[in-house]
């Protein structure tokens, strides 16, 4: 199985630890990954701004970079959704290479659960964790149940973390409201974006969240920025970082953490 790692541009530049944690989690599940050096960005900032002519070269570059892999795995639901759901106007539907790359681009959790059959890995993480359900993972990739929809779905993120010894989850008043990041929205509609972030953080504060996590570093970059500005006692980690940390401390004494399949 040939697996490529897609690390979104802002994660590459600002959150290298999230990328390294992703590698670590995949390796501990027995998967060797490639990191094609040519990769940059999926094109989402341009596409979300309506600028398709500017997004197109990035989509083409993405297809070009990742052709030939069985799976392309990324620790970002939003960028994965961009590739899978929003390349329609950017690459041809009759381009079989493009179709294959798009179909095989998976969010980290999707790959772990749906391809590797990982359930709830063993590990230790004695903290109260607040799950932020990033919108694109939730409503475009359907990685969990959303409160608007009456279709029952399992929460992939919670499942992946629930096996860790000592972990507990915050009970939020609004379990899947948007954090207000929204790409250029965070700057273009700064006032509303900041208020949305403030409301999310207040919800986590009342719920006693110690560690705030999500499947998208972009949401967390926004929330972390507000948490640091207010000097609040909430630590922010991508869920791959929680998994890497927790699985390293697996209580079994094995050199590779046990994966329950």
């Amino acid at each position: 199985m040939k697996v490529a790692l897609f690390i979104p541009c802002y994660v590459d530049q600002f959150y290298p630890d999230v990328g390294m944690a992703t590698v670590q989690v995949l390796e501990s599940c027995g998967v060797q990954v490639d990191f094609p050096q040519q990769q940059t960005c999926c094109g989402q900032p341009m596409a979300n701004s309506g600028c398709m002519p500017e997004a197109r070269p990035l989509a083409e570059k993405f297809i070009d970079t990742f052709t030939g892999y069985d799976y392309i795995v990324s620790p970002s639901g939003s960028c994965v959704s961009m590739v899978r759901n929003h390349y329609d106007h950017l690459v041809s539907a009759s381009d079989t290479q493009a179709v294959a790359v798009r179909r095989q681009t998976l969010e980290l959790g999707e790959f772990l659960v749906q391809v590797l059959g990982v359930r709830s890995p063993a590990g230790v993480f004695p903290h109260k964790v607040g799950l932020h359900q990033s919108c694109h993972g939730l409503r475009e990739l359907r990685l969990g149940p959303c409160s608007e929809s009456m279709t029952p779905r399992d929460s992939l993120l919670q499942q992946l973390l629930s096996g860790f010894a000592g972990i507990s989850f915050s009970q939020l008043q609004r379990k899947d409201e948007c954090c207000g990041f929204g790409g250029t929205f965070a700057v273009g509609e700064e006032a509303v974006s900041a208020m949305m972030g403030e409301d999310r953080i207040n919800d986590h504060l009342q719920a006693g969240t110690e560690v705030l996590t999500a499947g998208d570093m972009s949401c967390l970059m926004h929330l972390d920025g507000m948490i640091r500005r207010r000097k609040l006692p909430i630590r922010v980690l991508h869920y791959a970082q929680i998994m890497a940390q927790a699985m390293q401390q697996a209580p079994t004494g094995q050199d590779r953490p046990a994966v329950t399949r």
Partner: protein
Amino acid sequence: MGHPALAADFTADRERARWHDRALWFVREKRDRMATGVPEWEKLRETASAIKRHTQSLMADYLQQFEENATRHGAIVHWAADAAEHNRIVLSILQSHRVQRLVKSKSMLTEECHLNPFLEQHGIHVVDTDLGERIVQLREEPPSHIVLPAIHIKKEEVGECFHEHLGTEKGASDPKYLTEAARGHLRSCFCEADAGLTGVNFAIAETGGIVICTNEGNADLGIGLPKIHIACMGMEKLLPRAADLSVFLRLLARSATGQPITTYSSHFHGPQQGGELHIVIVDNGRSEILQSEFRQSLDCIRCGACMNTCPVYRRSGGHSYEATVPGPIGSILTPLQSPAQSSTLPFACSLCGSCTDVCPVKIPLHHQLFAMRERLDQQQLIGTGKKLQMKALSVVLSNTWLYSLVGNVARAALRVLPKFLIQNPLTPAGQWARQRELPEAPAKSFRQLYAERQQSNDQSSPGSH
């Protein structure tokens, strides 16, 4: 002024913005409880969407069928190509009967056509009889929500307004007292009216009947007392069969206010005895939308659920959209009619997708907002500054070498430059940093760390592969 500035004003009063957010979230949660109680909820949505798709594909045929059947019942059907023609038709009906006083129940279409000011210019006294509509009419402002027109107004402010206009006690804020006062006031308006005007929720091609849904019964009173009934409808209100109605009636009130059904769902087949029923069917750009990739926006049944769920709408208020229909659906419909005046609306959205999942007729709202941004770019309406930024970003990101270089330089700059330089309020970084910290720039990017790791792995296990 644009949405960002108006929204910033609204959020500046945090207490009020929170109150507004909570009021609408309360309605959203009521909707959730109602939807949970219908095991086939998602199937109902699917069915409603399919009925709308079918109807649109045969729109001309069904409109003709509706006209024939409505005429058979004695209704008079009028066709209006645009808002101006609609207003002229309504005026001529009123003038031919020497109508001085008109009572109206809620109709977003007449808001769209700006009928009230037009009629008032021609000397006709118009009273909106929906309680929320009456409040905003007395305050001389537009509705801020399509189902809850006065949701932005606190009960104390309603008290002030009624004290001024209806003579209620000063400082009164008891909802029951104020509602009773409005009730008494509206009763006399109903009795004095010469004609009643309503919107239409559904028009049935098979039967020629129209259906009007209200909670206050004001539509029924408004057309039960006067002999002239004018019903104004956008052509997309059509359903093929009476049997289709059940699907929509079950979805509408649950989605709108979290009620199983509206208090009144009134059916009209022809005029009352000795009276006249005029049905004005309006296009006003709808035919064009029907031909476009935004055709599904015409499926809208005006329940307002997308507004109640929208995290931006709840925190920015309906008036920040400066549109007849605000919120997610309004941010599609308004730029279709006047793109230059409403180019900020499709960007007043974090693309969270909640509206798409809440919509009872499955309009892919956030996908349409995404597509509308592309259309605005094609119309050169996204702003030259933003376009230039995106062009530059695209050039940098398209070249891996340049991307790495710019990334390394930017991170180094963030690490060494003083904050006041980086956070210049005129730059995107400065905008970001108004209420939040910028991310801390690490010394090395992921690709640098990964390359180093590969290198040390290769050295520690020579010839292992």
